[in-house]
């Protein structure tokens, strides 16, 4: 039985290129990814060190199209690694003839960024606004209250504000990164 190791890493929806690089480096060091579990557990199995490209495709494939989708990747020599929350991970060895890539023109690279924004970031932003914004009022005016109500509201604030600010920071971070990624693709820098 080969050695198995587990690593915890968080990559946001705008960090998929970093995630691909991380998996490639692990494989180069002799650990191939065998499983991923939400929110960030990567399982690796010891293997021969090799330069293998990992690629993430954000594509929530409908059930009836799954066979065709995976068949095409398989025909092209891609090995399926895992599928999580609409992200499909594939790998293929680097050879002398080619450095493999699933997206080979800038239009399809840009299309992936647009899809992540439209189908993942915006829905999450709407959920965020619907959940937190109605409570903002409650988390603002605790000074005017007295006694037990005041203590209760202070406790509430201690949870609410860090959560609110970290979500806000996360959206700004992802939005900026995705925009930068798109610009790089448009200018042919990546």
């Amino acid at each position, binding site marked *: 039985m080969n050695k198995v190791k587990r690593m915890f890493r968080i990559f946001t929806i705008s960090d998929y290129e970093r995630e691909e690089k991380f998996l490639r480096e692990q494989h180069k060091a002799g650990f191939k990814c065998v499983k991923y579990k939400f929110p960030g557990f990567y399982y690796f199995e010891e293997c021969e060190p090799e330069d293998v490209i990992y690629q993430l495709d954000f594509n929530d494939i409908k059930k009836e199209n799954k066979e065709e989708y995976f068949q095409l990747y398989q025909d092209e020599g891609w090995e399926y690694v895992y599928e999580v929350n609409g992200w499909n991970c594939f790998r293929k060895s680097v050879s002398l003839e080619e450095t493999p890539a699933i997206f080979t*023109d800038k239009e*399809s690279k840009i299309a992936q960024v647009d899809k992540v924004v439209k189908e993942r970031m915006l829905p999450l932003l709407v959920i965020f606004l619907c959940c937190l914004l109605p409570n903002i009022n409650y988390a603002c005016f605790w000074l005017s209250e007295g006694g037990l109500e005041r203590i209760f509201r202070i406790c509430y604030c201690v949870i609410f504000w860090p959560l609110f600010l970290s979500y806000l920071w996360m959206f700004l971070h992802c939005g900026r990164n995705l925009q930068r990624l798109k610009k790089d693709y448009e200018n042919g820098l990546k």
Partner: protein
Amino acid sequence: MTETGFYILFCLQEEMHGYNIIQKVKQMTGGEINIGAGTMYGSLSKMEKDGLIQFVREEEKRKLYKATELGKEILNIELKRIERLYKNSKGEMVDE
């Protein structure tokens, strides 16, 4: 039209599946153009949605597509454009 889109539409004058197209384009262009699986899948889905190509039948989990009438029309416009570009680039004039 993107280069990938052009080659796909050009190949789909005959019935073909995605992997066929990738191989044929590689062959036609002497290995210059290598369409990735993600690019191919996305292009086929989009072109089908836009009505340029249509699903014909399935063969061993691979879907075969063919250009629609609209697709052929668009391809012809594109071919004429490329022909003009080519002629002009060689210093030739194009007749009306």
